[in-house]
């Protein structure tokens, strides 16, 4: 079977689910961040796959680039926040950071 669009989508779907699992289950803030990176990358794979097979062409690439840029920015800010949380709570376990509790 020729490697086609669906294959790549499958990989991205699995990666996405893994990322999601990581986000939900892990306590450590940086782990959550890593899960997030996985999700973003899953999205990126989709973009490129559609660029190759779905006629999106360069536009898909550019979308992916912007996602990367966003991921970079997000990582920077998120880490800064993590550091801040650390300074405030002396730990970064986000399940204990529940100031929003109703």
């Amino acid at each position: 079977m020729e490697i086609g669009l669906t294959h790549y989508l499958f990989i991205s779907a699995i990666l996405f689910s893994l990322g999601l699992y990581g986000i939900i289950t892990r306590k450590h803030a940086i782990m959550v961040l890593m899960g997030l990176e996985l999700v973003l990358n899953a999205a990126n794979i989709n973009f490129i796959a559609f660029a190759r097979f779905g006629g999106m062409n360069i536009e898909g690439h550019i979308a992916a680039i912007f996602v990367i840029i966003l991921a970079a920015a997000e990582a920077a800010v998120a880490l800064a926040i993590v550091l801040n949380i650390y300074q405030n709570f002396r730990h970064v376990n986000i399940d204990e950071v529940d100031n929003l509790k109703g």
Partner: protein
Amino acid sequence: MTQDVMLLSIILLLVPMLSFLINIFFGDKLGRLSGIVGTTILGIDLGLAIVVAFTKLVSHADLFIIQNKIEWFNIGSIKIVVGFGVDNIAAIMLVVVTLISFLVHLFSTVYMEGDRRFPKFFAYLGLFTFSMLGIVLANNFLIMYIFWELVGISSYLLIGFWYEKKSASDASKKAFITNRIGDLGFFIGIMILFMTYGSFMFEDVFAGISSGLMPFNSSTMLTLAGIGIFMGAMGKSAQWPLHVWLPDAMEGPTPVSALIHAATMVAAGVYLVAKVFAMFTADALTFIAIIGTITAFIPATIALTQTDFKKVLAYSTVSQLGFMIMSMGVGGYTNGFFHLVTHAWFKAGLFLASGSVIHAMHHAMHHMKDHHSDPQDINNMGGLKHTMPWTYRTFLVVTLALSGIPLTSGFLSKDGILAGTLAYANLTGGWHWIIPIMGFASAGMTAFYMFRLTIVAFHGEPKTEIAKHTHENKAQIVLPLVILTVLSFWFFYSPNPIDASKGWFHASVTQPQTAVPAAYQWDFLISEKAAPAASQHLSESSHGETGQIAEAGSHSTGHYLNKLQEETHHFHLLAMILSLLIAGTGIAFAFAIYQFKVISADNLEARFKALHNFSLQKWFFDELYKATVIAGILGISKALSWFDTYVVDGIVNASAYLTRGYGKFVGLFDNIVIDGAVNLTANTTGYLGSKIRKIQTGQVQSYVVFVLLGLLIILYFFI
């Protein structure tokens, strides 16, 4: 040439204003100098007045009026045109006003010496002179009305000059308000005329009337307009029933009484009647005559018993003004105006003489440290003849003039008036005979009370220590007296001491042709030589392009002899004899009672107690007005004020109260029913919320889970 006269007149008008402005703004710096400044300015004004009068009376005798017109402002097509003009009576009045004003200024420099508001006094005198000259020079109703009011206000300021005294400020208020009542009538008259004839100018109004146009197409309205205008005169000239302010106005400084309340302002009413004489219908004239007659009679009776020096003079003034108005009313235009002029001199003389007496009394009291006696009460005087010889002499002469004794000016004018009333009564008949009868009676009383005053105050022995210590005053006070006395002799007006009709005065002041159509006028007032007056009035009143053309109206002053004048001539001798007899009787009684005490005054008083009291209490007019008009107005205002506070505002507050009550009810309903429902909902929601909020863990991850669940549901929903 006429332009020059107009220019001079305007300057003449404005010069006293200058005096006012200088004294009001720089008076404090000038101090005592302000009197000299004021007097000098008035001296200049007097010179100008003489020039203007001379030019008008001699050089321009052929012109009826020298006047100009200017458009003051306009409202689209409606133009308000005003102006000033000098006719013969104005020319004469100019001299009267400025001369008396000058003399009063001179007199006041001494009389008002040491007063705290000395400069203000001269300022107000200047303002008054300005306003009075404005009245004299007006050639239209609007300007007349404006200066009319200004005169009122300057009189207000001067009467209330010593405002620390409550009686003075009360008197000034009373004078102003009483005058305003008259002014309202004046203004209504003006409104009727303006509405009908579209102009304020005398000549336009007269032309309109003679063209037969009537206000509201009714001659009654013309009569009413005339009566309205005359009401203005009633206010200013203190005609019954508006006469009550004048005696009270004596609260003002005596020079003011001389200037305003004897010679000039109170004569303005008569002057006004003379100015608009042409517009009065027969009915209006009858009304005027009746008012004049009553005014001549009632105050004369009051003057019989008064003991205040100035009050006697005041009532005599009112009475004399009644004579003038009566004369106007019966058609005796020339004699009425003549009496105005002669009366101005001798009444000013009387007042200044009384001022001289009061001043001397004051000084004497001051000298004796007496602060309680009344310096104006004639019962405190007596024997002043010896201490104040010049004052006595001049006073005696002017008293003779007022009483109408031959060789004086008063004789000439009063005689003319009485002859006129006789002629009028003869021509009209019936109840009109009351007019001459009351006129003669008043003349007799005048002679009596004037001599009573002279005898009690000047003759006999001094009744108090104060009178003994009086002294003759300075020259500034005596000189005006002398001048006014000299002017009260006959030769200024006529070479013939018993007949004025050949003199220059009667030649200059001739009765104007009436503008009222013959149907509404006495036939004997219609000129035999029926000149086309209307067309003459019209021909001269053309506007220039700019509306600012000074031009001379040139009504011929041809002698229109009417039947009344001829008749008056016939009655001249009879009137002379009668008036002499009556005046002589009055004087004789005065001497008999007060000088020689042949008849006891106390006896008379006791016998006619009721009458005496009635006269002494001034016929209870003040009390009557207080009980009716004033109480009525105050009552209405109190009632309306109550109405406003409790009813109108009460309704407002009540509606507010009801609204509040309703609000309370609605509030209760709200609280129990609606709020109950709301609370129930809220409680339920709160309970549910307290359960559901458990979901909010505050953990980001649990939120993610819920987001995912939601996403899934949506996903499956769509698939």
